[in-house]
C-alpha cells in the first residue's frame, strides 16, 4: 500500500521527477545514496488496463524479491516512475522521450505489441535499455541490442499448443482474427507445427466482423484434426458461442491460449471442451519463487494472474542489470545477455543471441467450480521444447 | 432577352405553360398576376435556379437554357429575391464588394486581397451611397431593417453590372415613406445603368409609373403583354388581379 503512495508521489508532478533526474546526472560519480531512476510505461488506463495492473503488481513484487525487500541496490534505491500509455502508441512515445530526456537509462513495460515495437525503436535510437512487458509480438526478439523482454512470445504459445497434436493427426486449421495478432499466430503455427510436418491452413475472420456464425460453419467444413484458435478482445464470447452452435467441437480438439481470469467467463459452457495452452496461472508452476510471488502480490492486495510473472521477471531483470551494470547501458546489456535465473516459471534464460526469454509453458483445462471456472494444470512443457527459433539479425 | 415556350411541371402540376415573350434591350417590363400565378417561378427559370420542363431562354442572342445559375449571371443576368437575400453575417460593405469584384474579374482569386482603396471597394462605397446606405457600410447586413435590406440587394445587383435584371417584388414590405426613393433607384437602373428590367410588383402605382409594358400571368399562362393602359383595361386582368377598381 505504501509503495503505491510512493509511486503516486513520483507521478504526481513531473516537475519534481525532472529535478531528481537532473540531480542524478550531476552527481552520478559521487555514488552513494542517489536512487536509480527506472521508467515503466504501461497501460494504467485504456483497453488493457487490467493487464497493466497485473504487470505492475508483479513488477513491485519482483523488485522487492530481488532486493530482499529493501528496494535498494548497494544503498541506492530503485526509483520507479510509472507512465500511462493508455494503450496508445503516441502517448507511449511521448512518455519515453520525456523520460529519456531526463536521463533515464532503463525503460520497461507495455502490454501492447505496437507500442513494444515503437519502444524498441526508441531504445535503439537513444541507446538505452528497454525491457518489454507482456506484449507477445515476435518481432522484438532480436530486433536490436537494447531491447529485452520479460514475457513470452507468440512462438512459445504456439509451440505449447503443439503438445496437443497427437500422433498422425496432422491437419491443423488456425481460426484467428485477421489482424497482426492473428496473423502472427498463424505464422507461428506455420513455423512451429508446420515444421513438424503438420498441414496448416486457416480460417481468418475479418477483424471488423461482428457475426461469426458463417465462419464457424466454414471452419467445420474444413474437417481439421486440430483447431488452433487465436482470438483476443471483447468478441471472444460471441466467437466461442458461434463455434459451439455450429458443432465445431464435435469435429476436432480445439486449442487456444488461456487468458486471464476475467476471460474465463467468456468461454461460456464450452470451456470444458477447450484444450488450453497457457503462459501462466497461479497454480501452474510449483517452485519457491512462484510461491513467494503469489504471497507478495496477495499481500499487496491484488490477485496474481496471467501477466503477473512478466512484471515479476522484469523486476528481477532490472535489479540484475543495475547490480551488475550500475546504470551503464552497455554493461547492463552484458549483464542480462545469457543470464539464467530462477523465475516464477522455473529456470528462465535470456538467450544471448536474440534476447528471447526461454521459459516453460503449460497446458491446462477449465473446470467448473460452482458458478465460475478454475484452471487445472494438464502438463508443463519444458522451456527447451518451446524455445522459439533464433531470430536472425539483431 | 427572349423566352419561348417555357413550361414547368412539378409532380403532375402544370405550374407554367408555354410562356413566350421578348424583352428588347433597355426596356422595363412589369410582371403582374395573382398570387401563385407563377411569377417567381418564371424568374427562377430565367435565372437558372430551376430547370424548365420544356422551352428556351435566350439572353443577348445566346441560348442559356442549359447554362448554370453562375454562367447566366456572368452573362449579365442579375436578380433579387422575393424575400431579401443577403449575406447576413457579413458587413453591408462587404456584401456589395463581393458583388463588385465579380464584374472586375478574378473574383475567386487566392492571390488578390481586398484592400481599402481597390476598385471593388470604392465601387461598393459609391453604389452604397447611390442607394442611400452610405452611412451603414459597417453594419451587419442581417441587422438591417427590412427596407434597407432591399436597398442593399439593389446595390449588390448594380455592382455586378448586369445587362438584364429581374426584380421580385422590390417594394414588398417597404415603408410607404421609402417607396418613392426606392422607385427612383430602380428607375436609375434603367436610365443610368441601361439595364433591361423585368420586375414583379404588386404595388400598382409604382409599377405603372415605371414600366413600358406589363405582362400578365394567370394560372401559369401568359394572358397578355402590352402597354400598361391596355392591360389595365383588360377585363380579365380586372377581375383576376385587380379586383374592383382601386
Amino acid at each position: 500500500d505504501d509503495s503505491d503512495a510512493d509511486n503516486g508521489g513520483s507521478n504526481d508532478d513531473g516537475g519534481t521527477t525532472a529535478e531528481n533526474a537532473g540531480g542524478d546526472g550531476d552527481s552520478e560519480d559521487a555514488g552513494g545514496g542517489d536512487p536509480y531512476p527506472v521508467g515503466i510505461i504501461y497501460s494504467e488506463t485504456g483497453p488493457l488496463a487490467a493487464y497493466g495492473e497485473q504487470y505492475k503488481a508483479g513488477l513491485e513484487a519482483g523488485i522487492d524479491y530481488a532486493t530482499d525487500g529493501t528496494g535498494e541496490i548497494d544503498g541506492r534505491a530503485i526509483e520507479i516512475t510509472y507512465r500511462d500509455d493508455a494503450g496508445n502508441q503516441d502517448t507511449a512515445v511521448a512518455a519515453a522521450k520525456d523520460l529519456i530526456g531526463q536521463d533515464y537509462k532503463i525503460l520497461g513495460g507495455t502490454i501492447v505489441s505496437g507500442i513494444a515495437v515503437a519502444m524498441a525503436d526508441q531504445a535503439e535510437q537513444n541507446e538505452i535499455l528497454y525491457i518489454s512487458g507482456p506484449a507477445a509480438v515476435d518481432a522484438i526478439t532480436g530486433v536490436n541490442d537494447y531491447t529485452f523482454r520479460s514475457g513470452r512470445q507468440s512462438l512459445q504459445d504456439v509451440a505449447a499448443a503443439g503438445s496437443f497434436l497427437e500422433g498422425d493427426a496432422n491437419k491443423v486449421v488456425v481460426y484467428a482474427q485477421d489482424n497482426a495478432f492473428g496473423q502472427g499466430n498463424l505464422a507461428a503455427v506455420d513455423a512451429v507445427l508446420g515444421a513438424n510436418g503438420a498441414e496448416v491452413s486457416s480460417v481468418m475472420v475479418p477483424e471488423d466482423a461482428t457475426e461469426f456464425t458463417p465462419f464457424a460453419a466454414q471452419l467445420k467444413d474444413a474437417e481439421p484434426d486440430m483447431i488452433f484458435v487465436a482470438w483476443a478482445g471483447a468478441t471472444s464470447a460471441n466467437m466461442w458461442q458461434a463455434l459451439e452452435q455450429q458443432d465445431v467441437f464435435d469435429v476436432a480438439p480445439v486449442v487456444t491460449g488461456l487468458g486471464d481470469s476475467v476471460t474465463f467467463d467468456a468461454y461460456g459452457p464450452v470451456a470444458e471442451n477447450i484444450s488450453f495452452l497457457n503462459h501462466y496461472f497461479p497454480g501452474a508452476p510449483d517452485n519457491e519463487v512462484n510461491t513467494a510471488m503469489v504471497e507478495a502480490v496477495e499481500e499487496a492486495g491484488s490477485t496474481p494472474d496471467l501477466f503477473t510473472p512478466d512484471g515479476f521477471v522484469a523486476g528481477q531483470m532490472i535489479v540484475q542489470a543495475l547490480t551488475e551494470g550500475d546504470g551503464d547501458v552497455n554493461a547492463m546489456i552484458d549483464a542480462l545477455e545469457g543470464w539464467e535465473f530462477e523465475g516464477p516459471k522455473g529456470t528462465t534464460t535470456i538467450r544471448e543471441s536474440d534476447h528471447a526469454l526461454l521459459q516453460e509453458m503449460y497446458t491446462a483445462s477449465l473446470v467448473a467450480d460452482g458458478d465460475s471456472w478454475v484452471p487445472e494444470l494438464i502438463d508443463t512443457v519444458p522451456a527447451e521444447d518451446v524455445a522459439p527459433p533464433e531470430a536472425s539479425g539483431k | 432577352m427572349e423566352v419561348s415556350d417555357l413550361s414547368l411541371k412539378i409532380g403532375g402540376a402544370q405550374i407554367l405553360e408555354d410562356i413566350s415573350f421578348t424583352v428588347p434591350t433597355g426596356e422595363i417590363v412589369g410582371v403582374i398576376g395573382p398570387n401563385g400565378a407563377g411569377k417567381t417561378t418564371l424568374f427562377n427559370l430565367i435565372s437558372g435556379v430551376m430547370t424548365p420542363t420544356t422551352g428556351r431562354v435566350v439572353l443577348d442572342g445566346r441560348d442559356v437554357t442549359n447554362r448554370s445559375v453562375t454562367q447566366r449571371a456572368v452573362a449579365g443576368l442579375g436578380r433579387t429575391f422575393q424575400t431579401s437575400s443577403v449575406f447576413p453575417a457579413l458587413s453591408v460593405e462587404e456584401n456589395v464588394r463581393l458583388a463588385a469584384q465579380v464584374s472586375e474579374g478574378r473574383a475567386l482569386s487566392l492571390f488578390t486581397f481586398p484592400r481599402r482603396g481597390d476598385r471593388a471597394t470604392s465601387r461598393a462605397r459609391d453604389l452604397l451611397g447611390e442607394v442611400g446606405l452610405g452611412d451603414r457600410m459597417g453594419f451587419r447586413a442581417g441587422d438591417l431593417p427590412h427596407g434597407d435590406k432591399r436597398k442593399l440587394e439593389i446595390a449588390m445587383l448594380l455592382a455586378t453590372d448586369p445587362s438584364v435584371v429581374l426584380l421580385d417584388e422590390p417594394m414588398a414590405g417597404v415603408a410607404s415613406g421609402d417607396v418613392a426613393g426606392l422607385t427612383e433607384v430602380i428607375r436609375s437602373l434603367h436610365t443610368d445603368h441601361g439595364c433591361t428590367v423585368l420586375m414583379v410588383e404588386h404595388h400598382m402605382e409604382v409599377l405603372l409609373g415605371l414600366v413600358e409594358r406589363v405582362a400578365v400571368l394567370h394560372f401559369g399562362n401568359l394572358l397578355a403583354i402590352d402597354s400598361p393602359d391596355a392591360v389595365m383595361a383588360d377585363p380579365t386582368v380586372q377581375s383576376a388581379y385587380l379586383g374592383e377598381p382601386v
Partner: protein
Amino acid sequence: MTAMNTQKADEKVQGKVAAMRKAARAPQDGPGSQGTRSRLLALIVPVGLVVLLACLPLLNISIPGVLPGATYTPGTLHMLALAMVMAGVALSYHLLFGVAGLLSFGHALYFGLGAYGLGIVMEKLELGLVPAALVVIVAGLVMSTILGAVSLQVTGIPFAMVTLAFAQAGFVLVRKNPGGLTGGEEGMRLPTDYVPDWLVGVADTRNLYWVALAALVLAFVIVTWVQRSRAGHVAEAVRENELRVQVLGMRPFLVKLAIFVSASVIAAGMGMVHLLLNSGAVPHTMSAEFTISLLLMVVLGGVGSRWGAVAGAFVYVILSQRLAVLAQSSAIDDLPAVLAIPLSEPMFILGTIFILVVMFLPGGLAALGLRVRALFSRRARAELDEGTRTPGELVQEDGQQP
C-alpha cells in the same frame, strides 16, 4: 438623388434606434478598419510570440502542473511540438469549418495521408526526406482535389457523411496493412535511414520542435493568406448563402474546392511532421475520433478565429496529456468514489469542459480572451458587443436554399 434625401429624413426619425446599434465587424483588413498603431500591434504580437516560442528550448522555465518539466527538457519540447502540430491541423480545420462552413468528418484522412505517405514514400521509393515530402504534398493535392470534387457535390450532413465515408475507407485500409505498407493495427515505424540524423533521437527533440514551430507558422500564414484573399471572403459568403453567390456570377464549388484542397494539404503537411515527431504513424491518425478531436479543438478555441484554433489545440493537447497524469495522482485516489471515478478519467473531464464551452461560452477561448481584453480596451469591447459567432451560424442546413 431622391433616395439620399429620403434617407436623410429617415435618419432623423430613426436616429435614436440607429445610435443604439453598433457597427458590424469590419472586414479583416478592410477599409476603415483600424489605425496603424493597432496594425503594428497586430504584427508585433504574433512575431514576438513566435520568437519567444523559438527560444523556449534555450530557456529554463518551469510551469508546474502544465508542463511536464523545464522548457529545455525533451519531454516538454515533445509535448509542445505535438501541440504545435495539432494547432496546425486545427488551423486547417478552421479553414474548412470556420471559414467555409464545411463540416467534414473526414479531415483525418489527409493528416494520416501525410504521416503514412511520407514513411511509405521514403521507404519504398528510397527517397530522402525533402523529395519524399514533396511527393506526398503532390499526392495530397491530387487526392484532395479528386475526393473534394466528389464530396462537394453534396452539402450539410450528407457532406459530413461522405467525407466520413472516405476517411473510414482510408482507416480500414491502413488497418488492413495492404502489401505490408502500413503495419496494420500496430502502426508504421519511421524509416530512420532516410531521415537526417539531426531529426532522430531524443537528444534532437529540440530540432523537431523547431521544425514543428516552422510548420505551424507556415500553416498560420497560409491560412491567413487564404482567408484574406478574395476567395476566402467569397467562401464566407458561400457559407452564408450559396445561391446568392451563384446569382452574383461566382462558382461556389470552385471556392469550396480551393478551401478544401488548401486545408487538406496543410493537414498532410502537419501529418508529415507528426510522423517525424512520433517516429511512427498509427491508424488512430486516420480515424473519425481524430477528426472529432479537431472539431473539439476548434470549438474550444472559438469557431471562426485563427488564434482560437491554435489556442484550442494547445489547451486540448496539454489537458489530455496532463489530465492523464493528474488521474494517477494520489490526491484523486483518496477522494470518495463518486468524485474519484470521474476525475480519474481524462476524457470525462475534457468532454465536460467541451460541453460547458459549447453551452456557456459560445465564442470559445477566443471570446474569453476578448472578454478579458474588454476590461482594458474599448476596441475589444466593441468587438465583443457585436457578438461572437457560434458554430451553428457557420454551417448551412440542408434545406436552406429557397
